[in-house]
């Protein structure tokens, strides 16, 4: 499923949409950067409550399809700036990661 289709299916709010055509192959839920770096697979949608700019670096390092800030967490201003300059897809959602995962279960 493309990122654009995932966004439509789950009702994510775009913070920065660089490329909606990327394939989303998996989902990862994680808030410890070390853990995400160690375990996230390429082309994953990353659900997290970490709104700081370092998530953009991690997303670049691991070829993440997009970052979703869940629980209504707002991104830091530097995160938005960095996402725009680095071309990283970032979204927001008021839902929990569990609820978003359940919406995507079996669909990717």
């Amino acid at each position, binding site marked *: 499923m493309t990122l654009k289709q995932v966004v439509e299916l789950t009702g994510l709010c775009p913070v920065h949409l660089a490329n909606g055509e990327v394939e989303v192959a998996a989902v990862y839920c994680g808030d*410890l*950067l*070390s853990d995400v*770096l*160690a375990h996230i697979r390429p082309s994953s949608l990353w659900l997290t409550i970490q709104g*700081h700019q*370092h998530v953009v*670096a991690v997303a*670049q*390092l691991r070829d993440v399809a997009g970052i979703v800030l869940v629980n209504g967490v707002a991104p830091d201003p530097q995160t938005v700036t960095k996402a725009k300059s680095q071309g990283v897809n970032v979204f927001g959602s008021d839902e929990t990661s569990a609820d978003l995962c359940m919406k995507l279960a079996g669909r990717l």
Partner: protein
Amino acid sequence: MSPRQVILRARDAGLSMLAVADHNASAHVQTARRLGGDLGIVVVPGMEVESREEVHILVYFTELPALAEFQVLVDQALPQQPNAPEVFGYQLLYDEQDEIVGLDERLRQVGTALGIEQIIRIVRGLGGAIVPAHIHRRRTSLLSQLGFVDPAADFDAVEVARPEWVKSGLRLGARVDGFPAIAGSDAHFLEDVGRLRLELTGDVHDIHGLIRGVRELAEAA
């Protein structure tokens, strides 16, 4: 920030003691200590280690071999991954003359596999001191990662981030979350070396002297 430049700045700032505590790294400590020794400045061998919980913890030793032993354990507990210089910058290694002599290619800007309790145990075993860093910071702090500062934990002191220390008007002798509090420059740039300094009367030759002095003030308060 080469060891030589840091020590020269420390001299110009009138410091008699400073700690060098790099992130999961310690390659420059020996050089800094030697240069400092020539100028009568005590360099405390240290490291800011990142725990498994992604808490930053300052660890300090009195001698280089203990730090070296700790570094071996940290290296074993870091992911076996190369640094990504486009994201984290190049980790340049300098000699005493400011010449670049190497490149540290390990990924160090991540958490180790060592938990907080483990770090405390190891550092105690090596005769060092444990000071959780910037404990109220929004990320990589005890508060951000665990939600609280455990009053029963075996910390020697806690570090308050420089802006908070200044804003709260803290002094040595203050207790924060139950522990004697300290602060430092946390210099990531040369101009910040010596930006915030602690002053203690009496002879302070090493980290234990500093901790002792701080604890005495905290007990008297």
